[in-house]
């Protein structure tokens, strides 16, 4: 039986996720924690002037990325494989 898929299958390499299933809870906790720490930092820094705005932005970007990835891995860790 020659199926196109089976040929590709036999030549392929097993899929490797960015974070393996057993490490998802750790990844979620680490990312969310760092996200919350950055959020706390965001609320504490000096906001005045243009420099303050740039500082806020530089904390907001990694904070939101960290929270974004953290939230997705949190979902995966609790079994909602998005």
């Amino acid at each position, binding site marked *: 039986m020659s199926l196109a898929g089976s040929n590709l299958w036999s030549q*392929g390499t097993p899929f490797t996720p960015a974070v393996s299933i057993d490490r998802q809870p750790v990844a979620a906790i680490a990312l969310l924690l760092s996200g919350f720490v950055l959020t706390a930092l965001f609320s504490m820094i000096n906001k005045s002037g243009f420099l303050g705005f740039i500082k806020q932005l530089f904390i907001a970007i990694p904070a939101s990325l960290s929270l*974004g990835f953290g*939230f997705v891995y949190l979902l995966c860790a609790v079994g909602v494989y998005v």
Partner: protein
Amino acid sequence: MRFTALLPALLVGVAAFTPPSTDFTVRSYLRTVDLMKSYVRDSSSFILENTGAEPQSSFYLAVNASYTDTESPLSAKLAMYEVKLKSDDGSTSLKYTIDDEVNEDQMKYVKIELPKSIAVGQSVTVQLASAVVRELVPLPKKIKQAEVQNLVWQGSRVAYIPYPVVKQRTKIKFSERPANAYSRFKDDPTIDGTVLTYGPYENIPPQTYEPIRVKYEYNQPLIEITKLERELWVSHSGGNLATEERYWLTNSGAELTDHFSRVRWQATTMAQQSTPALKAAQVHLRAGVRDVYFTDEIGNVSTSNLRDDYRDPVLEFRPRYPVFGGWNYSFTLGWNHDLARSVRETASEGIYVLRVPLLEGPVNAMYDEADVLVVLPEGAKVLAVDSSYKDMTEELTSLYSHLDVVGRTVVKLSARDMTDEHRRNELYVTYELSKDAQYRKPIRVATAVFAVFFAIILLGKVDVSISKKA
């Protein structure tokens, strides 16, 4: 429908197409009818010799016309038909087409193509395997709760072949004991253990059909799944393949004459008597299974057990109540697998292949209708869908779930009339998923969070003081 198809042929007085019976002669035809399951497995092996005048590149067999009749979807139907050519170096599957025309014996011819033609005087060994669902009927139709169920099978004691047969035998196999009642002829059939043998017969003319009836004990449920919805959820970010299967099951065995008696049922269970009611069913799962669940409309059903064998994990589940003949039960089974077991990355960037069994349902079940949905990640592009099982309709749709904006790509395959043996058929889905599509979901959440941060920054800039600053 059958009659209307026949009518023009009768009116004109021309017989429907008949394959020339002089082309071949069949030597030693051995047929095995397996009555050990909810469905009938009818397999044969025979030697086909070209006794005609010319080399032949195809030959004909026949099937019961009603088995392929689409007018009545819930009658007995052909679930599997496979013709193989056996040779010294293995066997090859042969292509076949079932003719539309119905002949005077209510049969349809099946044309089978050979990979290379058979010269005059040459012979080949052919193996035929088929399965028919919804063919077995209980007799009597209604029984008492503690009574033993009997089934009836009707067929022919010789296989219907358009060629003369030199020697033929039909074996009928039963699971427990030989038939209680069966058609008898002079010295025929012979019984050996749980096998009933009709024949051997010699020099049978082409197109012979000699009806026989067999009544036998089958004190097990006839598991008929009227509908199955099987969903396979591929998650790249989670590295997981989630399977969820929703079943609508019925026991098509003998119904109860009286009301169900709980006391009698307890007595039957205590005495460990066999019963035609469905008490428990087994599902063979693939290795590496996790998080198995069994639920129904009420909620979680606690009576299930996963025998977590390394190679062959088996899920045994017990419905909330014994499913007697004519009773229904609908439920859901689900489990997870690591995606690495089912998805492989190909040499070309961003192209993946998914390999899953077409079905994974309960042992000894027949299916009326089955939908298999492969839910791919959002943004995936399906390149190819192929399976060794061809009798399916394919549809591309989409579906919304957690954190979806454009919807996940869904391949929906619909099939009818299958058996649990179709689990051997594999399904391959080749799809493309770019790297940025894989990170779309976390980025989407990150964007939403960033929007909140940005709003806070902007709101912080608003001067809400009443008086001007000094």
